């Protein structure tokens, strides 16, 4: 059921290429016809060469010219078919990748959070690639294969019925042999992949923990374990590989039996005068050719099934429901003052597990809000809601009085400067990374921002300074340096509101101190939300939100909360005091 709908989608996506598909089918038929016609012509030519003095040179010359022409047509058709197939496949695949990528950009964060990056990437890259391979192979081999089989039967029938039956009846035997072997080897392959999985697990664990292995001098014992699994894998692989490699010799054996049968029967028919020597030669070459598409087609069908499975996974991504688009009349938030209000907000990631309920909060422009609480209390969730990475289930969040759902996402997010707990850097130069929010910034502005974020000193020590190219994960940069870069990035565009999510947690105390000083001056007049672990951050906040299990259980400033001797007091004592 699902397969047919995938197939339908593939066909729908092929529609823009239908002209070219018609072309490729015509080319394929021309090519196959030419390929099949040549042995007949050769056979006829051979019939003109009987014995000394019995050679019809004029007829041979005419036949050879025909062979040359037919060959030329066949080759040209094949070349054009290949080009057309390439154009169709790669064009369609490019479309699919483009659509998948565009979908990724508008998928709700909830989807992206639920699916591992590797999985989605493999859909866009590996699955699409596999699909392209399958499609190309299908186009070039499946169709020509079928036409070849039909054509061969036709041509053979035109020469001799009996021998044709021999070929047609015996050849499929090779398919049965292949299927029989495949079924038997399946168990061996499963044993192999189990052993391989076990070994990969061990390798993964031991190489990953190699430093510990060495620290405890466990090399010899680990090697013993490795040897045991390695031997198991060797034995399993030998069986799997040997038995599966029997397919080829066995099918070839069936083919040679067909060949022998055609030879013998053909000879008898020829002796009886029912077939010429040229005709027999044509038959023998058909007997060879006829089995080839059979062997290929079984491979192509597996490949195509595989391709369809891959395509289904890609389409699943492309057809995923995107986030609710911005309303047509959505307001563009321009330089908001930074008054943020949450009114009776409720939110949860899954309906059966309520998380945030009845959350209300009023933040005046320029206030600093520190969010504290134990792990999993909903601090990160609050940020997801403020940035509208997720929509509230009920209640509302407003910025300067606008419900954020009536504002364009772009302008809302541009109003916030965000430094997340997990640093993310783009592959590119340091400068590219800093200017993400303001691609037009001058070098002076970039350096000024870096200095303010205390990142300048380490950047200028890098091999190419601001033009140093870093990998996606920041390459050789330390965690602290990566965070300084992320801070610089925000420092450069300095939007009216700031969100800092434990951003400084792995920067050492001294650097963090300097950054906080810089932030303190720069955030003056900016509304900021800080998910904080450090006492100094918390103490300087105008509002401290103490969260527990999705609720704001206490709200106030450091002194008033301490005086209350509630949850904050306990938390403070356990985390920061001795």
């Amino acid at each position, binding site marked *: 059921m699902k397969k047919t709908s995938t197939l339908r989608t593939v066909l729908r996506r092929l529609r823009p290429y239908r002209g070219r598909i018609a072309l490729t089918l015509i080319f394929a038929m021309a090519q196959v016809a030419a390929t099949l016609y040549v042995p007949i012509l050769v056979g006829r030519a*051979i019939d003109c*060469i*009987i*014995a*000394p003095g019995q*050679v019809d040179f004029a007829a041979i010359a005419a*036949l*050879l010219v025909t*062979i040359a022409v037919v060959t030329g047509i066949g080759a040209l058709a094949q070349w054009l078919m290949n080009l057309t197939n*390439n*154009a169709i496949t*790669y064009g369609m695949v490019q479309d699919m990748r*483009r659509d998948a*990528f565009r979908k990724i950009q508008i998928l709700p*964060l909830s989807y*992206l959070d639920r699916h591992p990056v590797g999985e989605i990437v493999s859909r866009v890259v590996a699955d699409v690639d596999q699909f392209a391979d399958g499609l190309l192979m299908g186009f070039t081999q499946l169709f020509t294969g079928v036409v070849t089989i039909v054509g061969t039967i036709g041509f053979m029938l035109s020469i001799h019925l009996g021998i044709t039956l021999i070929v047609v009846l015996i050849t499929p035997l090779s398919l049965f042999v292949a299927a029989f072997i495949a079924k038997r080897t399946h168990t061996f392959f499963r044993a192999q992949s189990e052993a391989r999985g076990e070994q*990969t697990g061990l*390798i993964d*664990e031991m*190489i990953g*923990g*190699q*430093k510990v292995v060495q*620290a*405890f*001098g*466990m090399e010899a014992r680990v090697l013993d374990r490795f040897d045991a699994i390695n031997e198991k*894998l*060797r034995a399993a692989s*030998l069986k799997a*590989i*040997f038995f599966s*490699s029997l397919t080829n*010799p066995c099918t*070839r*054996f069936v083919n*040679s039996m067909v060949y*022998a049968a055609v030879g*013998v029967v053909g*000879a*008898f028919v*020829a002796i009886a005068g029912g077939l010429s020597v040229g005709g027999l030669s044509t038959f023998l*070459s058909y007997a*060879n050719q006829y089995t080839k598409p059979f062997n290929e087609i079984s491979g192509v069908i597996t490949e195509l099934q595989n391709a369809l499975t891959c395509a289904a996974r890609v389409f699943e991504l492309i057809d995923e429901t995107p986030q609710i688009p911005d309303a047509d009349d959505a307001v563009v938030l321009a330089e908001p003052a930074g008054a943020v209000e949450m009114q009776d907000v409720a939110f949860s990631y899954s309906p059966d597990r309520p998380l945030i309920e009845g959350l209300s909060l009023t933040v005046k422009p320029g206030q600093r809000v520190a969010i504290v609480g134990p792990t999993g209390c909903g601090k990160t969730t609050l940020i997801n809601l403020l*940035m509208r*990475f997720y929509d509230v289930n009920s209640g509302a969040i407003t910025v300067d009085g606008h419900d954020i759902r009536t504002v364009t*996402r772009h302008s809302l*997010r541009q109003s916030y400067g965000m430094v997340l707990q997990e640093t*993310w850097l783009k592959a590119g130069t340091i400068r590219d990374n800093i200017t*993400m929010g303001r691609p037009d910034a001058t070098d002076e502005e970039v350096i000024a921002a870096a200095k303010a974020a205390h990142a300048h000193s380490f950047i200028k*020590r890098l091999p190419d300074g601001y033009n140093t190219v870093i990998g*996606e994960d920041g390459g050789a940069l330390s965690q*602290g340096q990566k965070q300084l870069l992320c801070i610089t990035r925000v420092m450069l565009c300095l939007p009216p509101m700031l969100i800092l999510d434990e951003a400084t947690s*792995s*920067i*050492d*105390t001294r650097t963090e101190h300097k950054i906080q000083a810089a932030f303190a001056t720069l955030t003056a007049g900016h509304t900021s939300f800080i998910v904080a672990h450090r*006492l100094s951050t918390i103490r300087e906040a105008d509002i401290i939100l103490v969260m527990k299990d999705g609720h704001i259980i206490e709200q106030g400033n450091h002194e008033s909360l301490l005086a209350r001797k509630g949850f904050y007091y306990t938390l403070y004592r*356990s*985390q920061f005091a001795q």
Partner: protein
Amino acid sequence: MKTILTHLRAYRRDCVLAPLFKMLEAIFELFVPLVVAAIIDRGIEGGDRTVVWQMGSILVALGIIGLCCSVTAQYFAARAAVGSAASLRRALFAHIQSLSYTELDQLGTSTLITRMTADVNQVQSGVNLVLRLFLRSPFIVFGSMIMAFTIDVPAALVFVVTIPVLSLVVFGIMCWSIPRFKQVQGALDRVLGSTRENLSGARVIRAFGREAAERDEFDARNSALTALQLKVGRMSALMNPLTYVIVNLAVIALVQVGALRVDDGILTQGQVVALYNYMSQILVELIKLANLIITINKSLACAGRITSVFGVKSSMTVSASPRASGDPTAPAVEFRGVSFAYAGAAEPSLERLNLTVPRGQTIGVIGGTGSGKTTLVNLIPRFYDATDGAVLIDGVDVRDYAPDALRQKIGVVPQKASLFAGTIRDNLLWGAHAGDPTDDAALWQALELAQAKEIIERKEGGLDARVEQNGRNLSGGQRQRLTIARALVGRPEILILDDSASALDYATDAALRQSLRSLTDTTTFIVSQRAASIRHADQIVVLDDGAVVGIGTHDQLLAECPVYAEIYYSQFEKEEK
């Protein structure tokens, strides 16, 4: 290449037998057109049915013998390929284990895992294919030509011309394509990079409103990929039509020559058919050979990557006459003017450290991230060699100890609390050396010291409870305490805790320090970001960007070392002091 040959040596016999049987199979295949020629010339022309029967039986016999040869060849080839791959994998694993931390850092875990798995597998299938096919195809190609010569020299000359031309086209197109396939792979990698960035960086990209720029980048890379694919495709699209034309031209020439020779009475009709059959065989085999070369090329690339890992040698040399013990009256640990820089790093991570640690003392090491704390303690068990100066344990340079003897003295609790699949007991026994008591009482004692007793008590199965791979069925704090217990099982003379209490709550951390203080014979190094964890140490080393900015007790440092004071006061209120 040489690496593979070394591991194939044990399978010498199989490596000879596999191609040998393949060649036998090919020889029998080459007889087929001759038999068919006999059917035509003696059977059909002569009207002799017995000949037809005889020749038919020969065809069947040839098929059966071919099958047997082929199956035998497959067996030997599979055995050699699988066996050499297993031996290669083992050697590689043993080699990786012999590398020091410096090399492990350089190579990286994920690279090493890929080498061990995917690359070795690719080499295995390469070896298998080479043994099976690499000799067969050329043999058939040249065998056909030789058979043609035995039939008729002028006709064979057609083969002499055709084979080089065909080879030129097939291998020319391949040589052109292979480097371009790599370019295609590179273009695909760039598409992959773009995609991954937009997933892993979705929040940041959306926060900065960079969707359009990212889209443009992706589209450009996607188009570049398609353009490259089409370019390479244009060339490979020529392969089949061109070879087809060449072979058919050869057939035309063959028929023409054959016609003349038959007319002269030198050749028979059946022999012309045989020549035609030989020509058809050549094309099939050359195409097979071309595909084979692509696979071999891939395998060689993998083999090259594996060889490069073998090429990395441990930078750590073991002394020619290693010592098993030191002087029990000397200080437990001594750093003499020690500096250290990581391989390839411009700046040293630790500079000119002088520190003497008497037996039984507790040393605290504190400083910011990247200040060199871990570097300092990693020099004690000789995970890395000091670039300058010397580290002495019991008065003997660590480089003069036998590695086993050295690590037996030291219990390390690394920053990353990694446990391994097995039972709790298996994991704890990692820490035990020859001669250490390994009974349950000893294990429980270590667990108790590490504040891990109640974790295990509550676990079903106790010491025999399962630990999953990387200890993922345990929490961070539980893992940390188990790794501490593991280090304690070996009753080390020197215990190193590298930020090992970071996931523990304050009370457990304090209890842990309290219980470690009872190990009066053990010299303990505690690395921490928390001032509370180290303030009671006998000596505290304060590091800042690799430089030692203070050594002393808490009170001394608070008074004299501004960096220490800054760290301390940022974590504790001044008035509480």
